[in-house]
């Protein structure tokens, strides 16, 4: 008999010989030995069953495994950092995660598209802009990374923060797409004429007087800053583009990425005017200047003084804000509305009030239900963005969770070995390091530097008070307040350590931040003098190629083993590769 394969190869089959060989094999088989082996296995299984702690099994199923037994690292597909499947957190939390986080957010990612704009613009934007196309579907993995190992109130509270950020991001990019000349045949539609573009470092509070008639959208917030957290591969292209036209590799990579978006013409053209700022560093100022050449439209630079402790700088700062308002009035043809300012400033104050309550719980109790990454990202996002309905909605949910947590004394981070304060500017491609650090080492990042910025209530009783507070508010913007602008602010670290009862510092070492690099040695001296455990975590803001996530983990691992002499809570998390993951 001849058998023909797909490749037309002919194989001769000999059925008789095959049957003969099979009979021989059957004859030679030792059935007794096989039976004994099966018996032995059955006995082993029976023994196991006998020793099985059914109660624990049920408990693990119902509540999820205890921290030390979770082996979260086994969930990753080796070499990728992607999940084989999500973890079992117990019945209640797994169901919550599936329904209220995964399903709820996926559903809202669809409905928000319709709520804040329309589907055709969304599709056009996704296809036109690299940062959009590469990040939208990776959002849920960003949730997974941030919520890994979280249970109970921490899972719920942190997820609400993420939900708020996702919703506001959709609102912003839909606003940009709906008015984007590039998506509408180069034509300036009516919406284009009703938008104000500004640097992501200009606070949204500046535009409250026009919030009812105009929409202010930060230009780089979504294209660069948010997308980088969600998918860290996206931004690399822009950094390379900036360097491709001659920019050296050493300036702040955040500024480089912002600039690269312009080099590659990957920014939406959604507004007739632009407001820039000097927050916070030389690179930021220089980037604004470069962007001006690309944007080529009326631009108002609204610098704020760097040495803002000096009472003499306040008037100057206030006048710059007023000049900015005048510029908006003149360019957009819409008068300044005091009533609108008051309305939004007072509404925003409620967010600040709640933030203070959160800090109080975080500082003085073990019942704070927000993890480090949710705290850091949410706070910087909403305080930079200004008052929006979604932040109030989130705060309402979080308040309920937090009050319940405090009332019932639920410690969401029971394996805390050290209360950590994270200082200086964080690695954007690994903002969830604190989730890992808690799961692996019990390092609970209670608060971070960026969260403590914009700490200013906005008075609205008189115009003068309003202007005074708004100036202070802007002066206390993230980088200006700490990374540069006078060493006094950076060294407030010691006060905050005491206030938040922290015993350890994770000192972000942004390798290209001249302000922080320029004061490196003094921090070393102070840490030694004060006998403080500080882990220096080098990174390059959005550029994961300089120091990878794995290297960051290794640095923390090394400190925890060689200096602190501690054992990991979850050894499977000590070392794994996730360079290819989002």
């Amino acid at each position, binding site marked *: 008999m001849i058998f023909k394969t797909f490749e037309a190869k002919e194989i001769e089959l000999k059925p008789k010989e095959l049957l003969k060989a099979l009979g021989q094999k059957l004859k030679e088989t030792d059935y007794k030995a096989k039976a004994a082996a099966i018996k032995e296995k059955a006995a082993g299984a029976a023994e196991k069953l006998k020793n099985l702690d059914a109660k624990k099994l049920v408990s693990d199923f119902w509540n999820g495994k205890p921290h030390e037994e979770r082996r979260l690292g086994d969930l990753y597909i080796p070499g990728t950092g992607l999940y084989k499947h999500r973890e079992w957190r117990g019945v209640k939390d797994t169901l919550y995660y599936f329904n209220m986080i995964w399903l709820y957010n996926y559903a809202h990612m669809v409905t928000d598209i319709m709520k804040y704009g329309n589907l055709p613009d969304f599709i056009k934007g996704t296809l036109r802009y690299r940062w959009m196309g590469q990040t939208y579907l990776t959002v849920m993995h960003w949730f997974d990374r941030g919520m890994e190992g979280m249970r109970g109130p921490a899972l719920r509270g942190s997820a609400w923060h993420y939900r708020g950020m996702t919703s506001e991001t959709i609102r912003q990019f839909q606003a940009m797409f709906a008015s984007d000349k590039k998506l509408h045949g180069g034509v300036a539609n009516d919406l284009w004429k009703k938008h104000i573009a500004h640097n992501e470092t200009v606070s949204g509070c500046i535009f409250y007087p026009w919030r009812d008639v105009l929409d202010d959208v930060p230009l780089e917030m979504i294209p660069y800053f948010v997308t980088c957290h969600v998918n860290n591969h996206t931004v690399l292209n822009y950094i390379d583009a900036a360097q491709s036209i001659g920019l050296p590799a050493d300036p702040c990579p955040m500024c480089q990425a912002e600039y690269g978006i312009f080099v590659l013409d990957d920014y939406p053209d959604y507004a007739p005017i632009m407001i820039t700022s*000097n927050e916070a560093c030389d690179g930021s100022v220089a980037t604004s200047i470069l962007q001006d050449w690309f944007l080529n439209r009326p631009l108002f630079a609204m610098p704020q003084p760097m040495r803002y402790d000096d009472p*003499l700088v306040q008037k100057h700062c206030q006048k710059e804000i007023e000049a900015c308002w005048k510029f908006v009035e003149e360019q957009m043809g819409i008068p300044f509305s005091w009533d609108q300012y008051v309305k939004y400033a007072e509404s925003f104050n409620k967010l600040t009030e709640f933030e203070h309550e959160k800090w109080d719980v975080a500082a003085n109790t073990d019942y704070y239900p927000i993890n480090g990454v949710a705290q850091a990202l949410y706070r910087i996002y909403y305080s930079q963005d200004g008052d929006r309905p979604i932040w109030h909605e989130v705060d309402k949910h979080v308040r309920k969770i937090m009050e319940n947590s405090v009332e019932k004394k639920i410690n969401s981070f029971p394996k805390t070995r050290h209360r950590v304060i994270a200082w200086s500017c964080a690695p954007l491609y690994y903002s969830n390091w604190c989730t890992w650090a808690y799961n692996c080492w019990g390092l609970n990042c209670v608060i971070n530097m960026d969260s403590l910025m914009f700490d200013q209530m906005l008075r609205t009783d008189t115009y003068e008070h309003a202007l005074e507070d708004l100036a202070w508010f802007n002066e206390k913007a993230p980088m200006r307040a700490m990374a540069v602008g006078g060493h006094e602010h950076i060294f407030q670290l010691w006060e905050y350590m005491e206030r938040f009862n922290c015993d350890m510092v994770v000192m972000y070492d942004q390798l290209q931040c001249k302000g922080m690099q320029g004061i490196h040695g003094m921090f070393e001296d102070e840490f030694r003098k004060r006998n403080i455990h500080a882990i220096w975590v080098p990174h390059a803001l959005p550029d994961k190629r300089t120091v990878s996530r794995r290297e960051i983990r290794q640095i923390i691992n090394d400190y925890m083993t060689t200096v602190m002499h501690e054992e990991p809570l979850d050894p499977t998390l000590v070392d794994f590769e996730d360079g290819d993951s989002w």
Partner: protein
Amino acid sequence: MRDLKHIIEFEQLLEEANNDLVRQAKAEGKRALGYTCYFMPEVLLDLPGCFSVRLRAPRSTSPDMATYYMSNRTCMYGRCLLERALEGGFNFLDAQMATETCTVTCRFQEHLQMMDIIQNPDFFCEFTDVPFKKNENSIEHFMGQLEAHVLKPLREHFGIDTSDAAMLKAIEEHNEVCRLINEIGSYRKLDIPTITGREFQIVQLVSLTCPKYLIIDKLREILADLKKRKPDKKPAWRCKVVLAGSEDDDPDFTKLIEECGALVVADRHCYGSMPGREEIVVKEGESPLHAIAAHYLNTSECPRFMEQHTMRERKEKLAQTVKEYKADGIIIEQMKFCEYWSYERTIDTIILPRDYGIPVCSIEKEYVNNAIGQLRTRFQAFVESIEIKRLAARNQEENTPEKQEDMA
């Protein structure tokens, strides 16, 4: 050309921050006031009873101690200054009049403020906030800052007379130095200049780092000497360039450029004379302090100015300088890790050839110039490229139909 009068003496003065003239002025009871940036008006530090010293760290090598404090990822100028301070090289300073302008020099000065580095019991360090715009709001703000952080401390610490009359006198003396330096510099505008870029830089640096009242006669003599100075019959240079960019207080760097065949005819950088040596004009009814504040903001060409028109005017001004000094191109230098100039250099390198047709050689350098070999190659190639362009233009001109008809 024969040596310029006083040039060797001036060169020696630049080998040390605490040089002979600084020591002489200190011995005469005057207060030495350090500063790093053009935004600190030197005219105020030259009020009667004190003198300005713009800080340099000549003969620096590896700033190891400063690198511990500021890491090796910051501008080497700032680190070399800190190293020199840690070595005791700035102990002669009575005060550091600091500015919040570029990050690394700001950090250097904060080290002086926080650590007990300067071994002088009178020493203090005071910061002035410098605005980012040139409008009236900024001038008023700057005036307030200068009054509070320069004049007041000088009065209180050293009893310096900071009255309008004293300021007017300081302005007059300052303007005299500026006039002399400008006149000396004007010889660079000649078709065949009678002063080299390096010589001029030495003169300019001495005027920044030594007490002015001790050099003014020497400047006059240099000017008199220049009036008689004859150029070489066959000049060594092959083209003329404008040197623009960030901090540069190293005459040897200019020498390196000139050795490659490019005569430096204009110095538009942090320690240069443009801006730097414009006379201060006090209008009728204007307070001297207002005039000073306005002058230093309005004349500055620093890339930290953010207004739209200012950024565009900077390019225009640079292009005009090339024309005025009959230069063939621009060398734009940037101190490694200087963020302002890394961006400004990038955009200059694109805009100036594209919009103004000016050849640009764009380089990064360190404060301690180690990479001489590579830089020499770059400069030589730039000079050659200018020569090739010149030849091509001449050939094109000769081949026009009119010329060919004439030849026929």
